[in-house]
């Protein structure tokens, strides 16, 4: 898996980006201050966007930055601000229940181990990453012909979600 004989720039780039993303993800779950967690989240989003760019899907990478790092992360930070009712350094604590913590850690470790084993046992096809210029064209074609219903449904979903969120968050007017 780690055959360093044909080490290229691509590989180095991947290792760096992956490392940053993973560390950022760890930061999300480790920091006691929720604002710090949120910023680590943004960093991980950016890391993932970089992964997409490396995989030659530029459109997706841009969408990732726009939607996730731009909208979702901002939304999260707005919500955090609205809900900040205590000292910021105590907002993102781990559960005091050690049984729960232990169980969570255990299950996580086991799932990771199982997945790694699965990856190890799989015989991966020896495929090469191809750089396709017209990947966006292909994507657009697929979206507007074969999967047009899904596309439209997604649009309606967005609309409904926005309306719903506004209604829920607005609350009930006390007369």
């Amino acid at each position, binding site marked *: 898996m780690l055959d360093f004989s044909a080490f290229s720039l691509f590989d180095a780039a991947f290792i760096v980006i992956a490392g940053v993303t993973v560390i950022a993800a760890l930061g999300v779950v480790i920091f006691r201050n929720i604002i710090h967690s949120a910023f680590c989240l943004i960093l991980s989003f950016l890391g993932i966007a970089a992964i997409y760019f490396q995989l030659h899907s530029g459109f997706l990478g841009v969408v990732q930055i726009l939607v996730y790092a731009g909208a979702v992360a901002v939304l999260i930070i707005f919500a955090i601000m609205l809900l900040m009712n205590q000292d910021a350094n105590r907002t993102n604590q781990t559960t005091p229940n050690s049984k729960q913590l232990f169980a969570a850690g255990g*299950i*996580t470790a086991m*799932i990771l181990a199982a997945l790694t084993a*699965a990856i190890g*046992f799989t*015989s991966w096809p020896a495929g090469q990453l191809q750089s396709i210029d017209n990947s966006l064209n292909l994507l657009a074609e697929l979206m507007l012909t074969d999967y047009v219903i899904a596309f439209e449904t997604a649009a309606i979903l967005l609309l409904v979600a926005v309306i719903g969120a506004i209604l829920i968050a607005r609350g009930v007017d006390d007369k």
Partner: protein
Amino acid sequence: MYDLIIVNAWLIPLLPFVAFAVISLFFHRWPGISAGISIFSIAFSFLLATGIARVVFSQPGGAVYEFTTRWLDISGLQVDMGLLLDPLSALMLLVVTSIAALVQIYSLGYMKDDPGFASYYAYQSLFAASMLGLVIANNFGQMFVFWELVGICSYFLIGFWFGRDSAKNAAIKAFVTNRVGDFGFLLGILFLQILFGTLNFAGLAEALPGYANAAILIPVAILLFTGPMGKSAMFPLHVWLPDAMEGPTPVSALIHAATMVAAGVYLVARAFFIFSSVPEAMTVIAFVGGFTALFAATIALVQNDIKRILAYSTLSQLGYMMMAMGIGAMTAGMFHLTTHAFFKSLLFLGAGSVIHAMAGEQDIWKMGNLHKKMPVTTWTFIIGALALSGIPPLSGFWSKDEILLGAFASGHYGLYILGAFVAFLTAFYMFRLIFVAFFGKNQAGEKAHESPGVMTVPLIILAAAAVLVGFVNSPFMHHIFGTFISHPAGIQPHSSNMIMVSSALIALAGIAMAWLIYQKEAINHLVMRSKFKNIYELLLNKYYIDEIYERMGSILVYGGARVMYWIDIHIVNGFVDLTARLTGKSGDTLKYTEDGQVQSYAMYMAVGVLILIVLATMAAVSVIV
């Protein structure tokens, strides 16, 4: 005409049964009519019985008639009902009907002012019907039905004065003890059905000789013998008979002296072909009979209740009969049964006459000098006692002598000595009774009066029978009884003058000893009582057998109950508690799955995902590998 009687022999048990039904349903409010119906039916049955006897005994060796009809016909099970008229059953018919008729006539006087007069006669009729049905049955199954019927009649009649606790308990004791015997009897019958496929006496007699597996017949025969052990009160199932004296005295005379208890002996005679082919069973029968004879005679020596003395005497004589059967002297046993029926019922009816005159008193020490005021009772009683003791030329002498002769001739010298000793004891205790009650110093007898004719006439008739019946098997009539009632496997020894003379002398010695102690008072019996105090107590308390049984029973019942209680409290309750505790515990454990915490639910989902990943990986790997 006699053929008509033979063909309609089923009327003999049916008439008393109809009498029972009619009295119970319609006439129980009119005592006189009830008694009349009952006596009429039994008298008519007696006439029919004499007719049958005339036919059966007209041929040398006796004629045999058998009628069968199919009663139940299902595939795999065919049950026949039938009648068997041979010398044995003809004899029993005569004995039962004659004594039952005399007892019922006697009861007119004895039970005169009893409030249950009508139901008494209903029960008497039912008993007569059951007993008569028993003796003419031609197969074990039918006989067993009537066997049980006779038992329930005994229960009714013993507990007739049901206001008394002692009577109630005695009735239950009789029935339960009989039941124990009947259980073994039924097992034996079932074995016979399984082994031979038929319960018919003639059919079994044919199938038996060729039967290969002789060893299995031993337990079958012994099981069959437990029925007579219960019904004829052999040790250890004898305990019910003395207590059965709680019933009215005529009942004791009929059922517990002459007929019902003789049913066991009759069964052994009827099934003699089975028993005689199993020597081990014969040994058991002989020794059980002999032991019972000795055992009961010793207890009778010290009893003070007139009926109890006679009850133990009955036990002893039944032991004699069984002993005779066991050593092979079937003729002698049946002969003794016949003579015993007459003189024992005579003795009981005489005792009843005395009790009636003494207004219910039964303790012989509270009687005395009765011979002055009750001459008929006294002299018939003495005749009965002489017959029982075996004084020639009365009937008891001939029959007892036959048995002793059989024991001596077949080489059972031990049983012979035992029998002779019991004869001595019998004579002793009977004349002890007579000297104390009829000729004693106590002046209580002055208040007595002779019983009415309806009671004394049966006494006289029975006394005549006690004198005369014995001659049918005497040398004077060339042992004509033996030509009819016999079995190829039985023994019929030749008379021996030595035995005859010695048994007469033994009886006279017993009477002499009783005279010495109780009449002449040469030896003071109270002094002897205190000198041999331990033996006296043991005998007076019937060897404490009743107490032993009660102890065993209570240990069984209370012990069993305690075990069951423990099981109930610990095991059964434990299971219930376990269920409850389990439910509680599982609830306690499972409540965490519904704690309302989203993260717990998420965790459970994660576990599920983990399992799925592992399964999928394993499936994929095994596909590859």
